[in-house]
């Protein structure tokens, strides 16, 4: 399947339920004017096309850019440079985020001009920069991620006591605004790059978590601002709701504006990349071409996507919220749940995260499982927000405090990969779809519910969406961890096997064996060291997943084990010895332990030793050279 078709089918699969839901509602419970419904359909088409192109662009450009930046970061010679550069990356991707400026303006109005919009934008960007910088150090110095997050949220809890509830909601909204459609994919790519370079046993878990770290930045920054300026209360009300009229008019009106916004958002990062490329990376033309194409796709896709969302979905959300709240009040939490569940899957960053999970874990963790858990989390968040709108006594922190506290506690007992994914999911879920469609729905509902404050309740929605997926995925990870431990306990004891003496070949021709070892993740470094001691040269490692012995079924999802395939090219006279060594020292005996294959490689026409490159034992070397490494017959 071509890449573009793949993206289209992926996006349409997640978009169809949303469209079906809206159309069903508009024929049954809610009265929707025809032109708004038509505009919604136009918006959906724009969203489909835009998101597919956008995701393609992210695939082509962001991964490369993230990789190069990560290499530059990780191979820095001084701590100072790492700190400055990672700060700069975090600052630059955030400062241009259009959502943040919109939020800044809202806060400026709400705070009666004590906090200016620009100050807010800069403070939040600095917050993100500092957090990314700390997160980078954490990753590269291999410090515990759950502990890092526990400390971060500990600080947030302490500060939260000093901040009024209204501001608490804004702080989380700021974090939702920064984890926008562009920043999240970039930060994900950067993290993936860092973990790829760092490698080792923790590469998988290190590929996640930075979005979670980053979203703490704005929360801290806005809380500090509130405390420092002494600003406690939000003034004013949200603007009166006025749906735009016409079908194509609003779309065409929105498009150029959104295009410029997207361009501005994309500019700082691209500029930094091209400057660095000119000065340092010198990316080959082909890759550079791909990055440029990718950036263009990203820009076009983002503009179309956001236009579709703004013009088609925002008014629709308000109308549904108002309609349901007016006539079917009791239905709000249920609809909220359904809406949260299906709308979050249209979030661009959810797709990007899914891709990253597939890449980083070699497809071991079924993305579907993560998506479902994420969906349920967000569904509960919206349902909870609806309850909060309907019953004013229910406070935001009733949900946030126990939610985050449980998540932090469980994160110590959860599979580490899931912890990173979970904290990322919080940022990923609060993207543009939630911030427009779902938020508009909540605001609509609040406007029609007596006693609810549109502004305050609206802000709270994002905070809820930022919390529940973290909790739900960490719970999943904890359950998963228990299963894994149980499966390991039940594993039969390894049979004692005596290793036969290695048959050392006595062939005369300099021919080679391609040795393939399929190992459990994390063993490859050891394997390469063992083989090197026994006379092998360099090796290449592929990440994959495999079934080996005990398979795990998890809620009907098949969980394969993560594997590494190590490939060597070894003189065929010592290859068997090396295989024996690997077999014995890595304990490849039992079920699902691992396998070593020897495939004869042909030296085709080319001068045989020249085919090989590097430190392979030459044909002149006596095969007995590594005799002490081989096993003595018992």
């Amino acid at each position, binding site marked *: 399947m071509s890449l573009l078709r793949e993206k289209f089918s992926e996006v349409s699969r997640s978009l169809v339920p949303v469209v079906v839901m809206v159309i069903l509602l508009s024929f049954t419970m809610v009265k929707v004017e025809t032109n708004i419904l038509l505009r919604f359909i136009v918006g959906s088409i724009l969203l489909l096309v835009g998101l597919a192109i956008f995701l393609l662009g992210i695939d082509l450009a962001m991964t490369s850019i993230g990789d190069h930046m990560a290499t530059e970061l990780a191979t820095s010679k001084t701590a100072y440079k790492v700190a400055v550069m990672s700060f700069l990356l975090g600052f630059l991707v955030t400062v241009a985020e259009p959502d943040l400026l919109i939020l800044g303006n809202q806060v400026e109005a709400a705070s009666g001009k004590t906090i200016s919009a620009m100050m807010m934008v800069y403070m939040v960007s600095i917050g993100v920069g500092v957090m990314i910088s700390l997160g980078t150090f954490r990753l*590269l110095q291999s410090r515990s991620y759950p502990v890092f997050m526990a400390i971060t949220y500990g600080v947030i809890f302490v500060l939260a006591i000093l901040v009024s509830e209204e501001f608490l909601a804004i702080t989380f909204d700021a974090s939702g605004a920064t984890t926008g459609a562009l920043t999240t994919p970039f930060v994900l790519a950067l993290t993936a790059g860092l973990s790829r370079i760092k490698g080792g046993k923790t590469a998988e878990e290190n590929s996640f978590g930075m979005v979670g770290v980053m979203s703490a930045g704005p929360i801290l920054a806005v809380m500090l601002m509130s405390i420092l300026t002494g600003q406690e209360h939000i003034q004013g009300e949200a603007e009166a709701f006025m749906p735009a009229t016409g079908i194509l008019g609003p779309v065409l009106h929105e498009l150029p504006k959104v295009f410029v916004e997207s361009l501005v958002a994309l500019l700082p990062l691209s500029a930094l990349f091209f400057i660095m490329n000119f000065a340092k990376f010198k990316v080959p033309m082909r890759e550079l071409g791909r990055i440029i194409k990718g950036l263009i796709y990203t820009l076009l896709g983002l503009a179309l996507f956001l236009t579709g969302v703004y013009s088609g979905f925002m008014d629709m959300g308000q109308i549904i919220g108002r309609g349901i709240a007016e006539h079917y009040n009791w239905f709000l939490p249920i609809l909220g749940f359904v809406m949260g569940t299906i709308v979050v899957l249209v979030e661009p960053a959810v797709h990007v995260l899914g891709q990253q999970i597939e890449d980083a874990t070699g497809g071991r963790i079924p993305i579907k499982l993560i998506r479902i858990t994420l969906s349920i989390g967000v569904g509960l968040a919206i349902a909870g927000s609806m309850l909060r709108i309907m019953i004013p006594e229910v406070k935001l922190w009733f949900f946030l405090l126990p939610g985050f506290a449980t998540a932090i506690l469980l994160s110590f007992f959860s599979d580490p990969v899931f912890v990173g994914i979970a904290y990322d999911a919080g940022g990923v879920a609060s993207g543009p779809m939630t911030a427009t469609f779902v938020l508009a729905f909540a605001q609509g509902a609040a406007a029609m519910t007596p006693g609810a404050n549109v502004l305050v309740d609206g802000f709270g929605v994002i905070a809820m969406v930022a919390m529940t997926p973290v909790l739900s995925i960490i719970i999943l990870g904890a359950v998963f961890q228990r299963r894994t431990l149980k499966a390991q306990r039940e594993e039969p004891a390894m049979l004692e096997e005596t290793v036969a003496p290695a048959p050392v070949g006595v062939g005369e021709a300099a021919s080679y064996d391609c040795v393939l070892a399929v190992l459990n993740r994390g063993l490859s470094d050891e394997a390469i060291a063992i083989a090197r001691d026994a006379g092998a040269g360099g090796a*290449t490692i592929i990440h994959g997943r495999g079934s080996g012995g005990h398979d795990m079924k998890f809620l009907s999802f098949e969980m394969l084990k993560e594997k590494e395939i190590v490939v060597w090219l070894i003189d065929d006279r010592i290859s068997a010895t090396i295989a024996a060594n690997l077999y014995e020292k890595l304990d490849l005996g039992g079920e699902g332990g691992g396998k*070593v294959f020897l495939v004869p490689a042909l030296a*085709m026409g080319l001068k045989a030793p020249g085919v090989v490159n590097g430190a392979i034992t030459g044909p002149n070397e006596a095969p007995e050279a590594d005799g002490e490494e081989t096993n003595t017959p018992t």
Partner: protein
Amino acid sequence: MIPDALFFAVVDRGKAGDLLHWAREKGVTGGTIFAGEGTNPSPILNFLGISEVHKEVLMLAVTHEHSQQLFAAMKDEFRMDKRYKGIAFVVPFRQWLPDAKPAAEDNGRAKEPPFVCLITIVDKGKGELLMDVARKAGARGGTIVHAHGAGVPQDIYFPLLIEPQKDMVFIVDSRVHARPIQAAIYQEMELEEQNNGIVIALPVLRVIGLYEPRGARKRGRK
């Protein structure tokens, strides 16, 4: 019976799991899946930057009977006899087992295999360039797999072992056609020089899914 061949199948992303499942029902134990990328030679798609096709590679250790069954299934159930559905091939091997007899080890080298699988390992990013070179020399397609080398300690601030990223390219073709392809790769990619990469040829006993590219191939078939 001890497996004596490695069965490789390159299929669309997401389908390898089904295939593995299917194989396991037939009694094949253990399989490994890794991600790869196919390339599409269309210049239009290439200009648009969407020539990449996501693929998955499934690797199974099989006995002779299983390999026969799998090939039949490839044809009937996975339609690999049709164009663009993927490719599957078997490479003979001897699995290292403590009690394995070293006798039948030359099952591939002794006779001339009908096909070969060229595996080239180059630095990351050069995989597509390599495919261009291979195509010019007559290759019909290839799969790029992202891999990395062993960690190398470097003089940087963090005590990290930097893992050099690599592209591994798998190209399957008949033995006769593979020769010029291998030579072209060796020359154009400058593999003669140290650390530029290596090219390995593995014997392939049987293959399904190998097709002429659209627009006839220039070289006559033998």
